[in-house]
């Protein structure tokens, strides 16, 4: 074998552990550097810019914020630029209860709907995992299929059903459950229905993948030792499915906190979530600095769950090696 490219062989064999990137072959470096630089440029750098603009002031210019960093002004210019930054926008966020309420509402909606998703998703995932092997793939496919259709369409489908003279009210009136149509749209109930509907696969799939891997011998052992089924579930199944529960809960909770489309289309004025506040600040008020500050505070709220999620993903990765 030609040994000219010893490093490439190492990469293929995963034997480069702990070595600095610079000491590797071109091929090995390209594999890491290309996606690394792309993500740094379009994911990491944008966040630094958001931080910087959240410390700026709104102006009537284009772009609508100041100060602008002028590299030509040199060191003095940089000092002037730093001096012009302020925490003003954060003070506004803290002073106005509108923002605080939106943050709290978002956390509340996310917590309640994630709990609902877990309660509804667990039996479904459990049912699929216990179904005959040959049916499992088809059932999983049935759960994922709607996920391949547009998010917007799925939310829109619920407007069809929930509107004042929509199908739900027609059924309710026809069955004499109520003598006049009820209000569904623009309520918290509609938001919860929309969220649970849209995030259902995100809860079911991680739960299914842990439940499916579980060793059935454990249940047989518990049954042989006289453990009733409900207790087996409580002391064996549930604790063992913890990784799936954690993944499902985080995969739903974090994006729901920042959800925009569902509360905007299905919710009313009482369900203003922080994603909508950010959207309004940016598009309607054109206040980019305040929108940035809203985003940074939202990120600060979510940083702990995001880190837990990443930690779990990495652990999965290490385990699979």
């Amino acid at each position, binding site marked *: 074998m030609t040994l000219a490219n010893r490093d490439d062989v190492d990469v293929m064999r995963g034997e480069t*552990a*702990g070595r600095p990137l610079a000491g590797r072959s071109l091929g090995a470096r390209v594999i*890491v550097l290309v*996606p690394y630089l792309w993500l740094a440029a*379009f994911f990491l750098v*944008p966040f630094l810019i958001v931080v910087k603009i959240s410390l700026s002031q709104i102006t009537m210019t284009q772009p609508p914020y100041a100060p602008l960093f002028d590299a030509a002004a040199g060191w003095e210019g940089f000092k002037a630029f730093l001096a012009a930054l302020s925490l003003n926008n954060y003070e506004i966020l803290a002073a106005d209860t509108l923002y605080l309420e939106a943050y709290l509402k978002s956390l509340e909606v996310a917590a309640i709907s994630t709990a609902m998703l877990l309660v509804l998703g667990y039996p479904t995932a459990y049912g699929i995992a216990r179904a005959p092997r040959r049916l499992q793939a088809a059932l999983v496919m049935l759960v994922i*299929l709607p996920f391949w259709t547009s998010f917007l369409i799925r939310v829109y489908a619920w407007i069809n059903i929930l509107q004042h003279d929509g199908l739900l009210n027609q059924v309710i009136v026809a069955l004499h459950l109520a003598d006049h149509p009820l209000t569904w749209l623009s309520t918290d109930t509609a938001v919860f229905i929309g969220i649970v509907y849209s995030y259902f696969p995100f809860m079911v799939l991680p739960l299914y993948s842990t439940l499916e891997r579980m060793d059935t011998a454990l249940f047989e052992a518990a049954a042989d030792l006289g453990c009733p089924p409900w207790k087996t579930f409580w002391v064996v199944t549930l604790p063992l499915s913890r990784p799936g529960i954690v993944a499902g809960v985080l995969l739903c909770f974090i994006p729901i906190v920042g959800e925009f489309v569902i509360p905007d289309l299905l919710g009313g004025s009482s369900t203003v979530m922080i994603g909508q506040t950010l959207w309004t600040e940016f598009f309607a008020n054109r206040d980019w600095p305040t929108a940035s500050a809203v985003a940074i505070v939202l990120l600060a709220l979510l940083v702990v769950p995001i880190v837990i999620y*990443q930690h779990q993903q990495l652990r999965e990765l290490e385990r699979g090696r």
Partner: protein
Amino acid sequence: MRTRISWFQASSIAWGIAFLYLPIAILVIYSFNASRLVTVWGGWSLRWYAELLHDEAMRDSAWVTLRVGLLSASAATVLGTLSALALVRSGRFRGRLVFSAMVYAPLVMPEVIIGLALLLLFVAVGFDRGFWTITIAHTTVTMCFVTVVVQARLMTFDRSLEEAAMDLGCPPLKTFLLVTLPLVWPAIASAWMLAFTLSLDDLVIASFTTGPGATTLPIRLYSQVRLGVKPEINAICTILLAVAALGILAGSGLAARRERGREEAARLTAKL
């Protein structure tokens, strides 16, 4: 797990499936409604589909969305496959923690934050907003989903095949192209499909990063949906659903044929 299915399990699956499919079924049925009133059934009709044909703005948007989707999904598949290789194969390189953080964060990060951050970047560097900014934004987000899908396949990959090739003197690049790539190809193909549908679907990030002349289908749909339910929207949603369903059918058809091919190969080897 192969215990007998209980009544409770069967009904919980049935309820779950009904909950998932009923709203979509209703939407599709009402797209064939002859009545303009969306809540009154006026008989079957293709009227709203005929009206869609004359909607030039909708057609333009569909074309923009398709181009963004094809381009960003392809770029994301290349970048995502590379980063999956980096995560699974490159061992511990300096900055691996930062790298994995950047890969996993966009999967759960609220879209409003990603959209805002990317827009502010494009403004800061003076990049004209439009088709290309949406494409870059979609590439960035979807490549992380590609990474997860390809990485899952790479982790269950039998390394001895590559080692055998290399021990027999096959150079690394050739080994990658002739052994590794064909084996992970199904995962790469389904990752591309995922990236493509995520791009077609996206409203929030596209709204932030779009510019004049680049109105994607979700942006146009959203502005109409806000005004309420209209039969034309039901019709366009049904078309989009049909396209998605066709894509899935084609995908699973391919998978089934591959499976048959594999069985055939196994039978032949057994005979030999």
